[in-house]
């Protein structure tokens, strides 16, 4: 005789629920503490609507004629900085990515070193990188290009290392068994497997870099940002609005381009 047992269905175990609760509680406490201690001056907030209205009236009408005089050339420079910087990042990311993939290089110390390089590149913001390279190379497009390159290594290298780690070991074992040298193993074993992912990462990062290279000029690293900085310092708000509009247009066009190419290659 089977007695009817009472089952209560629970989606999570007790410890899982406690862990979730702890996360939410921790965040709530952090938020409460932050809201109490952060220094916000309320008068500035009350003043904000007038300031915004003032800003908008100064921005309108736009000085559209300025595009031809000052913006176009800087915009082309920005696009070159983004593309050249992304290429530089790829050149640097391939060795670092290989070093970070623990199925290719089986030396924990090197894996760890690669991880450190990648994390440092990603945690330092692009503007901070730009400041560093402006201090080293002086203001101009060279600092911007190197900045974009160093900033993107972390992103490209991390995703490239992950793609390499996911590669199917079958072809690689076959090549190793046939006695292929290391360059052949990489070019014919790994590369065909990771190439689509690699081009996808490249395009994605180029899209991000178009956005970033538009602002690094604010600290002197070339491109449209320098024009924006000048307009801001001189309070030419009608020029600022044209610059913002052209950045917006270029960013949207870049995104459309990347989405279309990605659809075809993946």
């Amino acid at each position, binding site marked *: 005789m089977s007695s009817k047992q009472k089952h209560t269905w629970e989606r999570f175990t007790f410890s899982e629920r406690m862990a*979730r609760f702890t996360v939410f509680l921790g965040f709530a406490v952090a938020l409460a503490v932050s809201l109490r201690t952060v220094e916000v001056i309320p008068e500035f907030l009350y003043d904000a609507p007038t300031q915004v209205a003032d800003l908008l009236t100064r921005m309108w009408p736009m000085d559209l004629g300025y595009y031809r005089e000052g913006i176009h050339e800087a915009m082309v420079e920005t696009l070159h900085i983004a593309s050249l910087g992304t290429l530089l990042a790829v050149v640097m990311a391939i060795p670092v990515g290989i070093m970070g993939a623990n199925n290719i290089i089986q030396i924990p110390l090197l894996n760890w070193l690669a991880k450190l390089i990648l*994390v440092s590149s990603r945690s330092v913001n692009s*503007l901070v990188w730009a400041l560093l390279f402006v201090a080293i190379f002086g203001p101009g497009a060279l600092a911007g290009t190197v900045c974009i390159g160093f900033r993107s290594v972390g992103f490209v290298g991390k995703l490239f290392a992950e793609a390499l780690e996911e590669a199917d070991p079958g072809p690689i074992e076959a090549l190793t068994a046939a006695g292929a040298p290391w360059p052949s193993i990489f070019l014919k074993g790994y590369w065909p497997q990771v190439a689509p992912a690699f081009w996808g990462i490249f395009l994605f990062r180029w899209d991000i870099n178009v956005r970033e290279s538009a*602002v690094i000029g604010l600290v002197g690293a070339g491109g449209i940002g320098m024009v924006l900085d000048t307009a801001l310092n001189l309070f030419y708000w009608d020029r600022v609005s044209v610059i913002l509009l052209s950045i917006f247009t270029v960013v949207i066009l870049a995104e459309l381009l990347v989405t279309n190419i990605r659809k075809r290659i993946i």
Partner: protein
Amino acid sequence: MTTVTKQEYGSPFRINWWARAGWLIAVLYVMYAANYLDVSLTRFIQGLGNGAAFLGEMVPPNFARWKLLVGNLLETVEIAVIASAFGVLFSLPVGLLAARNLMPPWITWPARTFVALCRSFHPVIFAILFVKAVGFGPLAGILTLIFASIGFIGKLFAEAIEEISLKPVEALRAAGAPFISVIIYAVFPQVQNRFIGFSSYQFDANLRNSTMVGIVGAGGIGGTLFAAFQRFDYDFLAAILISIIALVMVSEFISIRIKKVFQ
């Protein structure tokens, strides 16, 4: 009798002319763009000398003003926490309005345009505008990162909602449930886990960006960093950079732990 059949596979290592042409174009482009930007090897090598001097001044890092450093780092974290909380809160309705399978086109279009606008400007541009609107200080940084969060989470959340199964939605609608119940019982349970994932990712991104918004005066450690640059105070600069990297690494570690909790 054995018949030998020979099959032609072609060379496995045949030359891909398209790929070669692509590499050639890439090399030509690099030469053209480097020339256009006036990037040359001599300038680069000159810069390397400066870089060595620069690194020399950065070592050893100067942690003497650690009180200022800790105070600034705390403000950075506070900006990130507040901005993430409000950003997530606001991106819920925006994402919902932008989902094309639940809303009519005349609602989704404005919502999608708003999200695209939030996303296409770099946070520092928002920071400049908010510094003008609400003055110097962390409030401008918070507002900046709220907009950046809406741009990112709003888009991904709308995409997640567009991928849900519509069966529970139909079932609830057929049963005559009001709109709010449809959202709470049919839509939200399907996207909850992904939403938490996006939020924790965005918190990381906000923390990184809140170290930068100070450069234009919007609070956090960026202001001190920029001042250290302008005063050529490179050993203190090294200390700031090391503490920023450490902060980001700690937050990455925490967010990996949090993701494990919600798997």
